[in-house]
């Protein structure tokens, strides 16, 4: 028989799509998608050795505005561009329509999405069904607090115009879908150090380019 996860077994399967009712002879062959979906599904459903699901990771992080505009996306599991667009569309529909008093968890396609609203922004994280939802809420808050310290009472506009900085900060907090640093101070320190590196490099560059510019005149 076959093993689903090993890549060698892929070639074992040939897929046929049944012809549409109208055209009898037409038969088209389609390979990749089915296989991949199967594999993903299987991996997702894979049960631990003891028949127990283990919590794993954050699959993606999403910041959506009240109007449904995307402000930040970070994907830790593999999603194609097409899937990403679809996920964003689906989730923003679900989350934005939820009332204020309801719980912060939405079950979605076998995953759970933990979201939390800060002013006009929704911070969403998609996790595996057995992860600790309450902790994810804390991680979201942790992220927001660090943003707040960095920008000085952060607002949506800060995240729009300095979106890359929001990404840098997120990269210091999460890595590979797992928490990296629990100290806000450490994150702030690391970001500041890297920012100053950029500053020095910029100063140098501008002075050199000035020289070049003057030289070429």
């Amino acid at each position: 028989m076959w093993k689903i996860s090993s890549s060698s077994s892929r070639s074992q399967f040939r897929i046929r799509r049944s012809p549409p009712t109208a055209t009898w002879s037409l038969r088209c062959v389609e390979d990749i998608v089915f296989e991949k979906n199967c594999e993903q599904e299987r991996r997702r459903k894979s049960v631990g050795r003891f028949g127990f699901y283990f919590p794993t990771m954050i699959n993606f992080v999403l910041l959506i505005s009240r109007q449904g505009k995307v402000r930040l996306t970070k994907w830790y599991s593999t999603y194609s561009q097409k899937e990403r667009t679809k996920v964003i569309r689906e989730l923003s529909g679900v989350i934005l329509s939820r009332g204020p008093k309801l719980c912060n968890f939405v079950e979605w396609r076998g995953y759970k999405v933990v979201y939390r609203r800060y002013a006009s922004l929704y911070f969403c994280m998609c996790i595996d069904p057995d992860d600790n939802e309450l902790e994810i809420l804390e991680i979201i808050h942790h992220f927001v607090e660090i943003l707040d310290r960095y920008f000085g009472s952060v607002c949506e506009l800060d995240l729009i115009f300095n979106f890359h900085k929001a990404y840098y900060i997120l990269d210091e907090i999460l890595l590979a879908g797992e928490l990296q640093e629990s100290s806000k101070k450490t994150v702030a320190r690391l970001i500041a150090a890297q920012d100053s590196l950029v500053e020095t490099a910029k100063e140098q560059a501008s002075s050199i380019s000035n020289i070049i510019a003057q030289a070429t005149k």
Partner: protein
Amino acid sequence: MNPFSSGTRLRDMIRAIRACKTAAEERAVVRKECAAIRAAISENDQDYRHRNLAKLMFIHMLGYPTHFGQMECLKLIASAGFPEKRIGYLGLMLLLDERQEVLMLVTNSLKQDLNHSNQYIVGLALCALGNICSAEMARDLAPEVERLLHGRDPNIKKKAALCSIRIIRKVPDLAENFMGPAASLLKEKHHGVLIAGVQLCTDLCKANTDALEYLRKNCTEGLVRILKDVSNSPYAPEYDIAGITDPFLHIRVLRLMRMLGQEDADSSEYMNDILAQVATKTESNKNVGNAILYECVETIMGIEATSGLRVLAINILGRFLSNRDNNIRYVALNMLMKAITVDAQAVQRHRTTILECVKDSDASIRKRALELVFLLVNDGNVKPLAKELIDYLEVSDQEFKGDLTAKICSIVEKFSQEKLWYIDQMFKVLSLAGNYVKDDVWHALIVVISNAPDLQGYSVRSLYRALQTSYEQESLVRVAVWCIGEYGEMLVNNVGVLEVEEPMTVTESDAVDAVEVALKRHSSDMTTRAMSLIALLKLSSRFTPTSERIKEIVTQHKGSVALELQQRSIEFNSIIQRHQNIKSSLVERMPVLDEAAYLGKRAGSSQPTLSAEKSSKPTTSAASLKLPNGVAKPPAAPLVDLLDLSSDDAPVLPSAPNDFLNDLLGIGLPNSSSSGAAPSTTTDLLMDLLSIGTSPAQNGPSDSNVVPSSAKAAESKPAPVTAPVMDLLDGLPSNASPPRDENLVYPTITAFESSTLKIAFSFEKQPEKPQVTLISATFTNLSSSTLTNFIFQAAVPKFVQLHLDPASSSTLPANGNGTITQSLRVTNTQHGQKPLAMRVRMAYKFNDEDKLEQGQISNFPPGL
């Protein structure tokens, strides 16, 4: 020069895009920007490369294609400066995913950067690797990452540890290399490194049993100490959240403890004390504390904890349940569902609270609670629970009713100890949410009523009463109409009155009224109307005074647009008018339906004796309504002739004229000659009675050539059942049907079943070609909406050849009201050595939404 500090240009672009009033304007701005960036790329412009990439990232976030910028990321990463690398790596993580081939080109740059002397550049490379590395990259770069784990800088170490997690997830074989370094990470003091190290250990345990054993031996002690230290630590401002020092570390250590303590008494024993301490001492008035308690409870449930500890854990969940915060209640329900396997008794204690959660205003909580209640039901508590749920059914949201009804029905069916209670509960559900009750549920109810002679009177009276208030519940109307048709006289004469009943008087014309309303209500669907017509016919013989009126009602439908109704009314009219002498025997009460056979059939057991029956189920149940209408039903006139013939020339049919007629009318009585198929015929009666019959009738072929046109009708059904019908209708000798006697017989299987879809496979094989199997697949829609654009695909292992014939249709009507059939020819080139297997995928549109379902079929009967 740098876009972000001087950065007017990036800012300007964002401003311009934000100023756009319409989507078209925005597209225009983006198009212009993209064109400029493309031009800059083709000129190989160095100065603005990072600014352009930053713009591209913003454009990408808006959802526009940006693939042309991917190479720019690589160029930036390859350049020497930190600012360029920083933005380059960000672009790499944002614009690319691990499936793009471009990614392979970056491996070399990554390798160089991992060996860079600047710690921040190493950090960037690790971050990128951890977020998007593919299996190939993981293999290539694992040694570098492993080396970094031994380094000195804590920031590099924690990043390297998390990066290793990704590497192990991609290539589990590499886990062994990381065991030693991971264990040594747990001895660190820096919290970031500890957190990363604990997570790495957790993932190692998942990937590899050796690693689990190794860590269990070497780290349990250390872990317990870490947890002790962190939970006893004095106020530490850097890590403090709401009075708790580093809850994230707490949670991660607890999680790893769960991995190590699972099925291992020694290490569990070692953890008991600290777990008890965390469970009792953690403050639960803030979310952070609850997050830790939640994780702690899960760990206690996961390991071999002492019973006292388990009680403590369940009590924590009980507290959670009564918390006012919805989030806490949600996780409590979630956890109780897992706890129920460990200690069902303890969970039972919180039944009332859980039941309250079913009525919550939050859909997420309701759903969880309902699932939990379903697990909680047992013989002892089914009555109060069912009562609560049914009471709630009345006030619940429309969108929740479907789920709720299904669960109530299955609870009631599964745990009912007495028929009266079952019937009562079902009546309540039917009158509150009859529209959500699935067909098989009310079919089962009818079978039960038919088997309970002492409750039939009670049933029909209750139904009549319920009908007065709930005419809009389709399923209720159907059951009521059926019962009134069958047991009408019990309704009028108050037969078998139970003590609990209130007395009531119903006249014969009242009963007819009730059925007439059901027939004429415009929201009634065809099945209901057809059932009403049959009920009227039955009543006409039972209530002689109303006979004239019934005749009129029936006559009104002679001109019905629905062919089915028109035909029935013409046939019935002819019976009422011209065949008084046989009418009473014709419309006799249904024989008792075989409960066991029906239940067996519902359970979908694939015993060979039932195989033929099962394959015919989708067609006979409801689709046969379609059949006479859609395909080639014999016109009504010849049928009347046939009736004439049979009554006038009774001797022509010496066997059993009534049976013959009944079969034609679909209100059949058990056919004496078909006793060979004994267990299944009776069940079929139920199906027949709902529609025009296809019950086996093996009466003489002599007169059936009156309706030669019906051959087609028979053809559209699966072969095994059609044979007798064909004999009856077009007089073909039985061997005209495919020579199935020579075929090997295989049981029909349910190849696939989900909430929306069911697929049954029946098999045929010719003895001379053992490799070749003909499979006819029958698709049934179990949901309440029509599925369109239905496409079925199948995949087989290499040693099998597959040929798919086109499907009979691409639209699948709702509620099993029709089926699609499709035949497959499978050639197993290794017949006898390897069993057949198949994967299937169904794509369809459900409520205008594209859906995809797939499954693997491995329950093929042996020998295929």
